[in-house]
């Protein structure tokens, strides 16, 4: 998966590149609008992660430029301004998703993967991990081809974990992924724990391996190692 990261904050860009590379993506970077425009002219990307506040112009220009040609590239807008207008404009002119700073890295990974999955209709949309198989739009998973139904939250949680295998995911990032604005509700961590427990049980009871590892005090890790 080839991703173009457009971000003028070099440190943040560096973090994104490191994290996404570890997640198995091929990353290219641009720190301003002109070099980004140059890059999209020369190469095709599966996804562009675009900061709209760039030193030499508004990132939205790049989306408009992309729309002029036929493309399959998914676009995720990154903005420091959690403004409804920005979000609507961005999504209206052709962006696929919108994420506000400060974001969690695994969340960005999950968003990119989800956008790319939606964009590539021909490709297989299901996600497999060893004996596990999950479809993005169905509340089920397959363990060794045995269908097991999931609750909505369990499904969302599993998708998030599968988007970030071998990564330590903090409870906060999971909570925000599952509940968005309600993430800071009391007990939300307890819910994560119970969802994780149920999910683990559903996998192991049906002959799957226990991939869900808890990282003490921090969160969880989905790992086959």
């Amino acid at each position, binding site marked *: 998966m080839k991703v173009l990261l457009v971000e003028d904050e070099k440190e943040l860009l560096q973090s994104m590149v490191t994290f996404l590379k570890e997640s198995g993506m091929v990353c290219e970077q641009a720190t301003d609008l002109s070099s980004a425009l140059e890059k999209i002219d020369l190469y095709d990307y599966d996804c562009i992660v675009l900061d709209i506040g760039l030193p030499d112009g508004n990132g939205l220009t790049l989306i408009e430029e992309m729309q002029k040609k036929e493309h399959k590239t998914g676009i995720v807008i990154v903005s420091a301004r959690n403004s409804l207008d920005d979000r609507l404009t961005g999504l209206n002119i052709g962006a696929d998703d919108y994420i506000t700073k*400060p974001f969690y890295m695994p969340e960005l990974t999950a968003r990119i993967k989800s956008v790319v999955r939606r964009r590539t209709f021909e490709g297989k949309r299901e996600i497999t991990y060893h004996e596990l198989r999950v479809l993005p739009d169905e509340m089920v998973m397959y363990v060794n081809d045995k269908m097991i139904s999931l609750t909505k939250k369990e499904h969302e949680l599993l998708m998030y974990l599968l988007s970030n295998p071998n990564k330590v995911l903090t409870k906060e990032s999971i909570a925000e992924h599952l509940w968005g604005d309600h993430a800071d*509700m009391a007990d939300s961590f307890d819910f994560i724990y119970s969802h994780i427990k149920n999910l683990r049980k559903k996998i192991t009871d049906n002959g799957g391996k226990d991939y869900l590892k808890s990282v003490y005090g921090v969160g969880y890790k989905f790992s086959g190692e």
Partner: protein
Amino acid sequence: MKLLNLTNRYYIVIALFLLLISVSFLTYRVIYLMDKEISDHMRYEKMQIEKQIALQPGIQDQPFVIGDRIQIDPIPKFTTFKVILRDTTVLLSEEGKILKVPYRILSYEQLISNKSYRITLWRRLTENRDLGRGLVSTIILVAVDIIACFYFLNRWFSSKVWRPFYRAINVLKKFDLQKGGRVLFQRSNVEEFNTLNAELTKLTDKVTRDYRNLREFTENMSHETQTPLAIIRSKLELLLQSENLKEEQIGHIRSTLDSVNRLSKMNKSLILLTRIENEQYATEDLVPLGQLLRNQLESLDVFIESKELHVQTHIDDDISVRMNQHLADILLTNLLSNAIKYSTRGGELNIMLTTQRLVISNSGPPMTIPGEQIFERFKKGDSPDSVGLGLAIVKKIGGHCNLQLHYEYTNGMHCFFVEFRPERVVVRTV
């Protein structure tokens, strides 16, 4: 006390004081002058009598009258040259009544043709007294008239003079810092008022500018902080992915991440607050609050269940309120999550929506901060995790969307009231 009343009060007090002094003085003078006049006249009469006696010797034995009455009595021996002038009262019978009549007497002894006589002149004083009294009362009447006249004139005049002042006050009353805008004063002919207005304009301009700057600063500050926060968080997350971290190191990363989260949440809330202040949510829709409430309750379902809350709802689904959709969403989210967060396990959560108001109440122990402070920024009870801006946002939204908010603690229930303005409520009729 109003300025006009104050000036008039001083005026009246001073005028009455002056009136008292001048009337007493006048009275004294009038009486004195009239008195003197009578005495002088009587002395003149005395001279007349002396002249007559000198011209016509023997006249003393005939009765003749100058003034009211003249009495010439022979006396045995001449004793003094002294002239006695004094007042006395004479009892007179007039129209069948006995009256005490005041008289003045001028009495002296004279030798006429070697015989001693006492000559006494009588002068009735009643007319003079009446005249004096009449004069004084006329003076008082006129003076009172003048004072009254001046009083009303002064009132009218002052109100005319001070009119620009009152106009300026009205202009200032209408000035709203939140809405900004310039204050416009009418020019007046009085230089002082123009100076005052100019200074007020300068002052309000400065306040508006400062306020705008402060708002911009808060907004910029919050925005600019997001990027460094994003960097910190990303680095911490990368750090967290490294192999062989010690438990202690993980602990440090964890608590740093927690602080970053708090900062980030606070920032988001502050940005929202400044956005509302900057009128960035000006669009209004008809928001079906009942529907919105049900949606929110559904998404909060897990949290309600986990706290084993007994939810009671009385929601009138036909009600829509004219307000910003996004703000309505935030308002309900904040109120509901607040209620869930602070209610006791197994407690009650009541939601009532009528055409007049929305009431969200939850059971819980009383707060450690006074009830009226609950909507203030960074005021939080015993909850160290919360940022303390949720209800400040609720309050701000209330102010922005013309909703009246208040809080009460009754019978162990925290009750939040959101009162609607009747003209903003639309009831759907089937």
